[in-house]
């Protein structure tokens, strides 16, 4: 049973009612086919109405949904022969980030992503997907290896942010993030980034510099969580819903702001309702991105990357 969010309760209730009627029809003489048909039509309209018009806060809930597929689940669906490699060779292995190589349609690629846990036990091991510096340094080690062996890099972004802890600060959280930004800027192989859940600030960005940036429809990408923004701006974290709207954090907002290239559609009700279908949608985009990027020389790639980021931001002249 998937966790039900408040706003989708009418849909779930109606679905239950239809199931009940169907069950009833099976064991009784009375024919309810017509009623069922009517209700199913209503369901379809209701689904379109609710899922088709999600408010920013509802998308935040989708992005954070406990059943939302994680990096490793997508890796399993999209690639073959994934081999995970560990460690940053400097301090340790941060399980909040997974990295390795795999085949994407017979072509070796480097895959890196934030990794949340699916339950409390795994979440503790993976630090709720919030990396320490060694996680970012592991990621960078894999990127440089990808460059050496001329493999494209595919990054999955899914984190509340870099871990705000004492040890993380002592080991240079800032430097680790900054270093990744700079090195990704100059990496001579294609980089494709896909935001699959929450894209939380610098901790997300440290895997997020690339040639093509895509977002799942119900994922978010933001400089700060809506709760954090509300606390900072209005001294009231209860205004998170308002902040989710004001801060412009949905895939549609980011597309409009020119920050991302494509929105990847999600199955009705969110990625967690049909992971296979979600993987198919992602597959289309990855294939297309790789096709476009494979013809660029390294010099063209870097020049285009600079051109892409140079124009992000907006200002006026006095």
């Amino acid at each position: 049973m998937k966790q039900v969010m408040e706003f989708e309760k009418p849909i779930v209730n109606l679905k239950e009612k239809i199931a009940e009627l169907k069950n009833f029809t099976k064991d009784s003489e009375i024919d309810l086919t017509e009623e069922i048909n009517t209700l199913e039509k209503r369901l379809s309209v209701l689904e379109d109405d609710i899922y088709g018009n999600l408010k920013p806060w509802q998308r935040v809930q989708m992005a954070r949904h406990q059943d939302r597929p994680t990096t490793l689940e997508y890796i399993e669906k999209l690639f073959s022969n994934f081999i995970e490699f560990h460690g940053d060779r400097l301090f340790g292995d941060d399980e909040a980030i997974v990295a390795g190589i795999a085949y994407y349609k017979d072509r070796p690629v480097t895959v890196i992503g934030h990794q949340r846990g699916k339950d409390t036990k795994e979440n503790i091991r993976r630090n709720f997907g919030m990396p320490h510096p060694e996680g970012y340094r592991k990621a960078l080690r894999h990127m440089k290896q990808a460059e050496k062996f001329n493999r494209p890099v595919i990054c999955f972004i899914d984190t509340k942010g870099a871990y705000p802890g004492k040890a993380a600060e002592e080991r240079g959280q800032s430097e680790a993030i900054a270093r990744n930004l700079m090195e990704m800027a100059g990496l001579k192989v294609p980089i494709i980034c896909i935001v699959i859940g929450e894209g939380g600030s610098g901790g997300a960005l440290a895997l997020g510099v690339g040639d093509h940036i895509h977002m799942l429809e119900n994922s978010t990408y933001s400089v700060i969580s809506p709760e954090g923004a509300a606390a900072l701006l209005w001294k009231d974290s209860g205004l998170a819903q308002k902040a989710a709207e004001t801060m412009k954090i949905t895939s549609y907002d980011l597309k409009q702001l020119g920050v991302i290239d494509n929105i990847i559609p999600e199955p009705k009700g969110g990625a967690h309702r049909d992971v296979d279908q979600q993987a198919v949608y992602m597959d289309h985009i990855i294939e297309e991105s790789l096709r476009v990027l494979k013809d660029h020389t390294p010099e063209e790639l870097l020049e285009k990357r600079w051109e892409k980021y140079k124009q992000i931001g907006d200002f006026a002249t006095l």
Partner: protein
Amino acid sequence: MMPSGVEKGGVTLLKDLFGKRKKYATIPNHQAKTDVPEGLMQKCDGCHKIFYRKEMKKNLNVCPNCGHHHTLLAWDRIECLFNMDSFEEWDKDLITSNPLQFPGYEEKMEQDRLKTGLNEGIITGKGFIEDQAVAVAVMDSSFRMGSMGSVIGEKIARAIENAREQSLPFIIFTASGGARMQEGVLSLMQMTKTSIAIKRFSDAGGLMISVMTHPTTGGVSASFASLGDYNFAEPGALIGFAGRRIIEQTIREKLPDDFQTAEFQLKHGQLDKVVHRHEMKALFTTLLDMHKEGGEIS
């Protein structure tokens, strides 16, 4: 040694015995606070001694008694390092367009423009330290806490590009609480924009010196501030990624007083050197000279 808590407890007890303990606090009213002509005297934030403001300013806002480094405004910083006759400011007229249409943002910016006389929390340009031309960017924390939005990102990126094209070394003084909330994800993307500019500059052989001043945190610390060939900081400056309060809440533990100071970062290998403000110019002069050979952009 007696723990300080017990010691304090003892003092309180004595005071209570003699009935001399104040049962109330005096809150000075606004009038009293402003009785002293504004700007004449200045209390040191470090040792709390009082000095003539003029004396403090002459000392580059470093306390003559304890050496505490107070905030230095961007123009004051530039004046103490550069020959002002030949300083050329870049992109002065860039201002925010309020890209997210954030309510109240433009009014706040207008207030800060009036308060500081700056159009944004940064000054960029070209100047001479002794006879060496450099591109420079100086952030100003009195303008919206030096928070970084599109304009700051753009001005830094342009300054670095200018440095690359004109074969100049690039020096940046950071002072910022991090990303500017009112520009949301566009602020975040300035981290990328500036980092790519630095990569291009660095690949071309350019010399970049970063000096982190109080405070350098969040997205600024996690991008250009940490990407110099040499990363310096002023004594006592607060430098870090996450805020102290957030970390204390996360780990449920009180952090040591020196946490995230320049000295703490030096101890943990995150800085090349902590540099006293009075020694900054001499260090630059030497460093620039040492990079004349081979430090030039090809």
